[in-house]
């Protein structure tokens, strides 16, 4: 996704500059050797680094950030559309209240049942006292 976007944008940026520098390339087939292409790619990368140092900005970061912005924008638009059909908080609160209050809770004095006798095991004498390190306070 973002990675592919970065690669395609960076690659296309490099491609334009490489093809612009390749004076010997014909309009159709590219007859430059592999080493020539690699050398031109290296030259473009060095130019990018030089430009970055001049502008104090990171070109590759811009490219990545731009691509991420597109993704973020798409997500944002989807969320905006979703909000058109989203309930108010008060609707959610009603559901929450009903759910919480109908459940038994061993840590609350006034609670729905059924109670479980095991809830009070923390205050019972242990079955085997030998070797036990309980410190009931």
């Amino acid at each position: 996704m973002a990675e592919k976007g970065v690669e395609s944008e960076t690659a296309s940026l490099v491609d334009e500059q490489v093809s612009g520098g390749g004076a010997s390339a014909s309009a159709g087939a590219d007859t430059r050797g592999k080493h020539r292409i690699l050398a031109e790619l290296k030259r473009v990368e060095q130019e990018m680094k030089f430009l970055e140092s001049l502008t104090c900005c990171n070109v590759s970061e811009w490219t990545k950030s731009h691509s991420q912005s597109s993704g973020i924008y798409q997500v944002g638009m989807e969320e905006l559309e979703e909000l058109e059909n989203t309930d108010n908080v008060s609707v959610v609160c009603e559901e929450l209240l009903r759910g919480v209050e109908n459940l038994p809770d061993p840590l609350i004095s006034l609670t729905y049942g059924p109670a479980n006798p095991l809830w009070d095991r923390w205050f019972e004498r242990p079955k085997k006292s030998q070797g036990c390190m309980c410190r009931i306070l």
Partner: protein
Amino acid sequence: MSVSELKERHVAAIETVNSLREQLKQKRRLLLDTDIAGYAREQGRNPVSFGPTDLVCCRILQGHTGKVYSLDWTPEKNKIVSASQDGRLIVWNALTSQKTHAIKLPCAWVMTCAFSPAGQSVACGGLDSVCSIFNLNSPTDKDGNLTVSRMLSGHKGYVSSCQYVPDEDTHLITSSGDKTCVLWDITTGLRTSVFGGEFQSGHTADVLSVSISRSNSRMFVSGSCDSTARLWDTRVASRAVRTFHGHEGDVNTVKFFPDGNRFGTGSDDGTCRLFDVRTGHQLQVFYQQHGDDEIPHVTSIAFSISGRLLFVGYSNGDCYVWDTLLAEVVLNLGSMHNSHEARISCLGLSADGSALCTGSWDTNLKIWAFGGHRKII
């Protein structure tokens, strides 16, 4: 395209995104017609009340010689695993206070631990960037130490939190300082999915905490130093389902609400918040001035089994018990008799909700239970 044209397009894109963000904020504000406390008061609800001897400390688990950083209960029985600065994991029988295992770790800088659903293994992780698995039934070596049965390697930063997928002993999720969360297959030791990171959209800073939904184990939330919490679907690693904004500091801890449709967060900004998974709404902010000038950070949170109580540990040693529905503090375990002597770094409820375990920088763990008179409706 020239560099200057690229820069212009970038600036325009950022402005468009910011404008959209503003629209979203405004749209959402229109839907925030109340919060939980406002609604509950309108419905005539009263806060939970505690007598002075209702919630008591009924066990002290002593044995660590360093700060306790993390703890986890078994889903079924009374066992707890804890991780400490002393470089050990200890497995406790919380009912008898006995230690059943004391595991010396290969890397002492542990930050998190977790119990497997069946209770046969424990996992831990920390500054070594690895999540290590120990089988509690394995034989020990000549020095009496349990050896690592599986190492989950791949993170490029510290492992801050780990949790087994509910009812699955073979999968767990980790969060990391490398800005990602990972779903692991423990059987193979391989990463099944990576959430966020360099090539996918996700957190933009260290991830500090994860919590997996019990009602839908494909959903989990993560909290990060980028001040957001994110909801993920394990089937879709490329981007978060939703990002939750609101906090103004690191989100140190996240925990799913018992019903699985909400989750709580705790942050360096001193607040806890409750968010709704389906609508994305922020339902409630939990904040109370502690009396000091400096705002204490929230270190850990846990919900009671019904969700009515929210237990919150703070960096100043307080441990507030909040009435979740009324957003009021109903008790402070940090000021009670037998409270910890230093900050509470981790909290957890037993599987049946009858006991709360707190772990502290004072090296101890304590078990709290309801010892008062219970009235069943």
